[in-house]
C-alpha cells in the first residue's frame, strides 16, 4: 500500500502561505486513497506557479511550455492510455495562453484530468490581470482598470458538453471536499476540468482566503450533475455566493474509445516497426 510519505518530494519554490501547498498535499492524499503508485501516472504542466507542482511529488512528468499542457497530455494519453494522465495549470496558463487548447480538449474528450489553480491573477509575472480577474481591477499593467470581463470556465466547459466539470476551494475548510472531487475526477472516464479557487498571498490582496471562505458553499444534497441546463444555471452563480462541487458530468464516449488502432492495446505497447510496411511500396506500381 502506498502511503503519504511515499509522495515526499522536493521542497516547493512557492511563497509561504500559497494555496498551492494545500492543493499539492490534497492531491497526494487523493492519490494515496486511490492507491496509485508514482509510476502509474504522469503529470503534464505548462508554465506558472501551478505548473511547478509535478516537481514536488514523485511521478512521471512533462513540464512543457506556457499554455501547452493539454496538447502534450493529449499526445501522451493517445500514445499510452494505460497511463493515468493529469494536467496541472494556472488560470493564465490554461484559460489565457492555452485557451484554444482547452476548447478542443473538451470537445475531443481524451481521458485527461485537468486541475486549474485559479487565483484570479498572474503570479509568476508578478500581479497582472489574468483571464479570471474581475473587470475594473487596477493592476500595474491595467492602470485604468481591467477592461475585460472575467472568463467563466465552468459555464464555458458545460456549454461545450465537457464530460466532467467541478469547482473546489483550496482553503483549509474546503480541502476534504477538494480531495473527494479530485478522486472523482481522476476516476472519471473522460476529460475532467476541476477549477480550484485559491488565494495568492503575494499578488492578490482582494480574493483572499477569507474572501473565498465567506462565499463558497457546497452544491446541495440531491443536486443532479446529469442535468446540463441546471448545471449551466448554477455555473453562472458568482459573487456573494460561490457554489463548489461537481456541477456536471456525462458518460460520453472518449476519444480513445473511438479510435480502432488502440482498441486492443495502447500504441506504446504495439510492435515498434511494422513487419509488412515494405509492401506498401507495391501500391505505387
Amino acid at each position: 500500500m502506498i502511503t503519504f510519505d511515499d509522495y515526499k518530494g522536493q521542497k516547493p519554490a512557492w511563497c509561504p502561505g500559497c494555496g498551492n501547498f494545500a492543493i499539492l498535499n490534497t492531491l497526494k492524499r487523493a492519490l494515496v486513497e486511490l492507491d496509485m503508485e508514482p509510476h502509474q501516472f504522469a503529470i503534464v504542466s505548462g508554465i506558472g506557479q501551478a505548473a511547478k507542482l509535478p516537481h514536488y511529488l514523485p511521478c512521471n512528468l512533462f513540464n512543457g511550455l506556457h499554455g501547452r499542457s493539454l496538447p502534450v497530455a493529449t499526445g501522451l494519453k493517445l500514445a499510452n492510455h494505460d497511463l493515468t494522465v493529469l494536467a496541472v495549470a494556472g488560470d493564465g496558463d490554461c484559460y489565457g495562453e492555452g485557451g484554444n487548447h482547452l476548447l478542443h480538449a473538451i470537445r475531443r474528450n481524451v481521458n485527461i484530468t485537468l486541475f486549474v489553480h485559479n487565483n484570479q491573477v498572474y503570479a509568476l509575472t508578478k500581479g497582472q490581470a489574468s483571464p479570471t480577474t474581475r473587470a475594473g481591477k487596477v493592476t500595474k499593467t491595467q492602470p485604468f482598470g481591467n477592461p475585460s470581463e472575467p472568463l467563466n470556465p465552468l459555464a464555458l466547459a458545460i456549454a461545450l458538453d465537457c464530460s466532467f466539470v467541478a469547482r473546489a476551494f483550496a482553503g483549509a475548510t474546503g480541502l476534504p471536499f477538494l480531495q473527494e472531487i479530485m478522486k472523482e475526477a481522476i476516476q472519471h472516464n473522460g476529460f475532467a476540468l476541476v477549477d480550484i479557487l485559491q488565494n495568492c498571498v503575494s499578488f492578490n490582496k482582494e480574493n483572499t482566503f477569507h474572501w473565498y471562505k465567506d462565499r463558497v458553499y457546497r452544491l446541495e444534497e440531491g443536486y443532479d450533475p446529469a442535468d446540463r441546463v441546471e448545471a449551466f444555471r448554477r455555473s453562472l452563480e458568482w459573487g456573494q455566493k460561490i457554489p463548489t462541487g461537481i456541477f456536471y458530468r456525462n458518460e460520453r464516449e472518449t476519444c480513445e474509445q473511438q479510435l480502432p488502432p488502440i482498441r486492443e492495446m495502447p500504441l506504446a505497447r504495439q510492435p515498434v516497426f511494422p513487419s509488412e510496411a515494405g509492401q506498401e511500396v507495391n501500391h505505387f506500381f
Partner: protein
Amino acid sequence: MEYTIRVGGEAGQGLQSIGSVLAKILSRYGFHVFTHQDYMSRIRGGHNFYQIRFADSPVTASRDQVDVLLALDMDTIEFHRQDLHAGGRIVYDAVSLGTKFSGQEFLDIPLARITEEKGADQIMVNSVAVGAILGLFGLDIEQFAVIIKSTMSDKGEGVIATNITVAQAGMDFVEQNYPDLDSFKVVKPKTKGQMLINGNQAIGLGALVSGCKFFAAYPMSPSTSIMQYMADKAQQYGIIVEQAEDEIAAINMALGASFGGVRAMTATSGGGFALMTEGVSLAGITETPVVIAEVQRPGPATGLPTRTEQGDLFCVLHGGHGEFPRVVLTPGTPEQAFQLTNKAFHLAEKYQIPVIIQSDQYLADTEWTFPGFDTKHLLNEDFRLRDQILKGMSSYKRYAQSDDGISPLAVPGTSRHLVAVDSDEHDEYGHIIEDAPTRIAMVEKRLHKKMPFIRQEIASPTYIGHQQAMVVLVAYGSTFGVLQEVYALLAKKHRIGMLHFTEVWPFPLVEKFDYVALLKQAAHTICVENNATGQFAKLMRMETGFEFSARINKYDGRPFLVDTLLGEINDHL
C-alpha cells in the same frame, strides 16, 4: 523518344483525374514519367494544368514546350498555345468550347457527343479524353481498364464497363478520323512497369515504414496530402492521426506522444512551422525526438498558397529560440524523400532531437517513376528503453550525463522508474535548476557533446561530373531533377559538374568530401535557388567561406523548367 502532354482547364473539370490516370497508365507501360501540377488556391473555376512528360529514358523535370495540349476550356488554348512544340497538337471539343479552330494543329474530338452517344454520364467525358490521348500515341486500353477496375470497384460493374466503353470510343474516334498522326505513335518499352510516386506520398511512405505511430497536424497546403496518406493507413498499421486545433497543438501533441513512447511526426508549411517554433525549441531542451515535414510554399505570410518556393531555409535552420541541435534534410526526389524520412526518424530518436524534412510544393506534387524503393536497408532501430530492459536498471536518470551526450530515453509507465522532462533548465533527474554549473553541464551534454556525432551522420553532397570542372552548378532540395537534366545537356559542350545537397544541417563536413576544393578550382560556380535572396548561397558562405561566382534565383512561385534554366545558365558561361 519523349513527349509532353499538358491538360488544362478550370478547377473541378477533372483535369487532375485525367492527368493522374494518364501518368499511371504510362508508368505501368514502363515509360519514365515526370508530372507537375500548376493550380490555383480555389476549388472551382480559375485556370489549372497538369503536365506529363514521358520518355523511354529517365526524365526528372518538366520541359517548357508541349507536344499535346488537351484543352478543357478556352483559357487553356489562349494561355498555352504559344508553348506548343512544332508539330504539336491541341486536342479540344469544338462543341463544348463553342469555337471551331481551323489550324492543322487542332484536333477536334467531340468528347461530350461521344459520351452522350454511348449513353454515359457526362462525368465520363474524362474517360473519353484519356482514350483519345492514348489513341493519339497508338497505345491500347488495357491498363486503363485495369486502373478503372481497381479505383472504381465501389461504383459497380456498370460504371466500370461504361467508362471502358467510352474510353475505347474516344480511342476509336482518333484512329478513324486522324489516321495520319503516325509521328506520335510510340513503342511500349521492354522494361516492366515502374512505380509512380510524388514527394508527399514518399514522405508518408517513409514515415510508415519507419514506425511512425502518431501523426498530429493542422491541414495546410501543400503539406496536407502527407496527413491524408497517414490517415489512409491508420487502420491497417495502427497509427493515430490527430487533426490538431492549430500547429502549436500539433507539435506539442507529437512531443507528448513521443514522450509516451511512440515515434511521432507532424507536417506543415511555412506559416504553420512559424507557429510551431516554440515547440521545436521545447523538443530541443527536453531532448524529445520529433520529425517535422515542412513543405514550403511562397511567403511571406499567406503568400501563394498552392505554389512553390525554397524561401524557408533560414526559417527552419533558425526557427526556435535558444541553442540546441537539430537536423535539416532537403530531399530532391521522391526516392530521397522516402529514404531521408527514414533517416529523419532514426536521427531524431538516436540523438533525441527535432529533425526537419524540408520539401516544397513542387516536390510534394511532382510524380516521378522509379523501378522500386529499397526497403531492405531501412534504419529501423528502437532506441527507447522500455519494459524488461528498463525494469532491470537499478536507477534511472532521464538526463544522465554521458560521453556522447545521449541519455537513456525511457518510456514512462513501463517500469517503476520515473521519467521527468522539463522545459526549464534541469538536472539529470529532469528537475528545475538555476545554478550555473548544472546549466553549463546540460548545454554541453545536449549540444556540444552530441553535435560532433550528429555531424558525422550527415551525408556529403552528391557530385556528378568532371573532376576538374570549369563550371559547377550547385543546388539543394527540390531542384535536383531539373539541375540534373540541365547538367546533362551542358555536359555535351562544357567541362561541367553538378553539386547537390540533400542534408544541409549540420552542414556537411569537408573532411569527408572536399566540395569546397572542387568549387575553388572552377571558373564558374552557379548556385541555383527557387528563392529571391540566395539563402543556400549565404549558408555556404557562412559555413565554408566560399562565395559562388553567380546565382540564379527564381521567385515567381513557379518551378524551374529545363529549357528556361538552360538558357539562364548559358547566359553566365
